[in-house]
């Protein structure tokens, strides 16, 4: 018998797997479940975008593109960021087209983090940052936000976590799982701290087009921040293009250049048909975004209201497509809640602690579902909550 440990990278082996694997394996295997559990849109990719992808295949444009992505696509990305978020990037050397936002995050962290570097990770947040930092030998330091602050990051919170080894802040807004956003007035004070301590920022803006009641503000648009920020974004959430696997990174040329080098060796180039479809999305997809955003917004109001009606505290999310109700009143922890809920009512939601320890006491509810689906799921959750409260109270 081969001792595989001898061959495997010990740093990788020491990275902790997701703590909620047990619940996930239950949830994945179960049939007849009403789910509010997925992190991807229910809309299909708009037809004109799909058609562009098909056309590319039909014409046999199936070769590699430039490593950094097609120049035309980088130009359109540059236009998009300039017109939507008022930040200008040079398509020649400040943009890298990646395989989903995920690859951009990976490339960026690997380009920046050396062993021993401390990286501040705002939590709750998407699950990939910490493991990648750790694989690079970095130390991920959680900066915990809370519902009292609307899950926003404050200058004091960063200040408290900074040491002389702190190098990077990972800044995930609009936020998965909480739905929190950062407005200009929230960004300014934290940018002062970032500049004073000479930190670099990885801003994951994958949900930037899904904000309600105010446009997204990129941290890179704040004075003096563009030069110390890599922005990650992509097409998955904005245009319902999850399976196309296409994203991009924007940042200062010296950093994008190193990321591109790594990307060239690891990936070569992002899928060609996805890139041409993405050009179509950026050129003619604004109306699709408006339609989807309008729909999400109505479902968002419905979902938050429905959770409050069944007696669960629910912070008002202003971005992404998640609500993050608090379930502490049931006396259960997040995982117990989700496990019992799916077993007894066949409704799937995600335990908040999947997104960091401070997500404990919450569940992530996705509202990219039809209203009928949301209504029935919340009705069942309501029954479940009542049963739990009766038990808990007695």
């Amino acid at each position: 018998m081969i001792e595989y440990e001898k061959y495997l990278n010990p740093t990788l082996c020491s990275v902790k797997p997701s703590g909620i694997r047990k619940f996930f394996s239950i949830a994945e295997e179960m049939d007849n479940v009403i789910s509010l559990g997925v992190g991807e849109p229910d809309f299909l990719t708009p037809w004109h975008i799909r058609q562009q992808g098909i056309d590319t295949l039909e014409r046999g444009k199936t070769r590699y593109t430039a490593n950094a992505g097609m120049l035309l696509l980088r130009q359109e990305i540059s236009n998009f960021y300039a017109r939507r978020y008022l930040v200008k990037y040079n398509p020649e050397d400040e943009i890298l087209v990646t395989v989903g936002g995920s690859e951009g995050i990976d490339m960026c962290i690997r380009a920046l983090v050396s062993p021993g570097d401390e990286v501040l990770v705002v939590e709750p947040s998407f699950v990939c940052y910490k493991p990648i930092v750790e694989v690079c030998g970095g130390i991920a330091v959680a900066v915990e936000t809370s519902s009292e602050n609307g899950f926003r990051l404050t200058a004091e919170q960063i200040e408290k976590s900074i040491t002389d080894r702190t190098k990077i802040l990972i800044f995930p807004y609009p936020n998965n799982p909480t739905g929190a956003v950062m407005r200009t007035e929230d960004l300014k004070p934290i940018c002062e701290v970032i500049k004073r301590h000479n930190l670099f920022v990885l801003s994951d803006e994958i949900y930037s087009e899904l904000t309600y009641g105010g446009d997204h503000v990129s941290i890179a648009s704040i004075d003096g921040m563009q030069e110390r920020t890599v922005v990650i974004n992509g097409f998955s959430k904005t245009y319902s293009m999850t399976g196309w696997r296409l994203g991009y990174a924007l940042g200062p040329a010296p950093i994008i250049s190193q990321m591109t080098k790594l990307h060239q060796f690891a990936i070569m180039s992002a899928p060609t048909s996805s890139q041409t479809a993405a050009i179509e999305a950026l050129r003619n997809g604004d109306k699709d975004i408006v339609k989807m955003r309008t729909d999400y917004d109505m479902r968002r109001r419905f979902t938050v209201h429905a959770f409050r009606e069944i007696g669960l505290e629910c912070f008002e999310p202003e971005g992404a497509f998640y609500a993050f109700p608090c379930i502490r009143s049931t006396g259960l922890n997040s995982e117990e809640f989700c496990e019992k809920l799916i077993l007894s009512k066949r409704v799937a939601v995600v335990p908040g602690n999947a997104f960091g320890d401070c997500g404990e006491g919450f569940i992530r509810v996705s509202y990219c579902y039809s209203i009928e689906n949301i209504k029935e799921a919340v009705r069942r959750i309501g029954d479940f909550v009542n049963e739990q409260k009766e038990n808990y109270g007695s």
Partner: protein
Amino acid sequence: MDRLLYLLENNPRLSNNELAVMLGVTEKDVEQKIKLYEDSGIIKGYRTVIDKEKLHDEKVTALIEIKVHPKFGRGFDDIAQRIADMEEVESIYLMSGGYDLCCLVSDKSFQEVSMFVAQRLSPMEDVMSTATHFILKKYKEQSVLFADENKDDRGNISL
């Protein structure tokens, strides 16, 4: 289109309270606006989309192309209105192209459709000719898919 109309068209069973929550307005606002739409004839009614094939009652739907003589000063309105008044007719439209009026007759037996065309429609003075097409299978009606429902293929859970 107005968001309220959009919601009513796609989810007609939502209560006024639910509509108000989704639109961020009061229930009273919703009530008043719906009344306004109804009174002004923008909202024509509320109907349920039923897949009658599943009821196995052997009824058919026919699409009838009609060529007519337009009347001086009245165009097609006169004859179209007279056909629209017949209870068998579900929908009738004035068309561009090779014929004038397109008429839908549904939930009738084959025999009933034949009788309707032969005895009521064709003999009308201004009707020049008709062509009756029977619908063989419905795939989608009023934006509702009749074929097997699209199953959500996203799985139960993902981060």
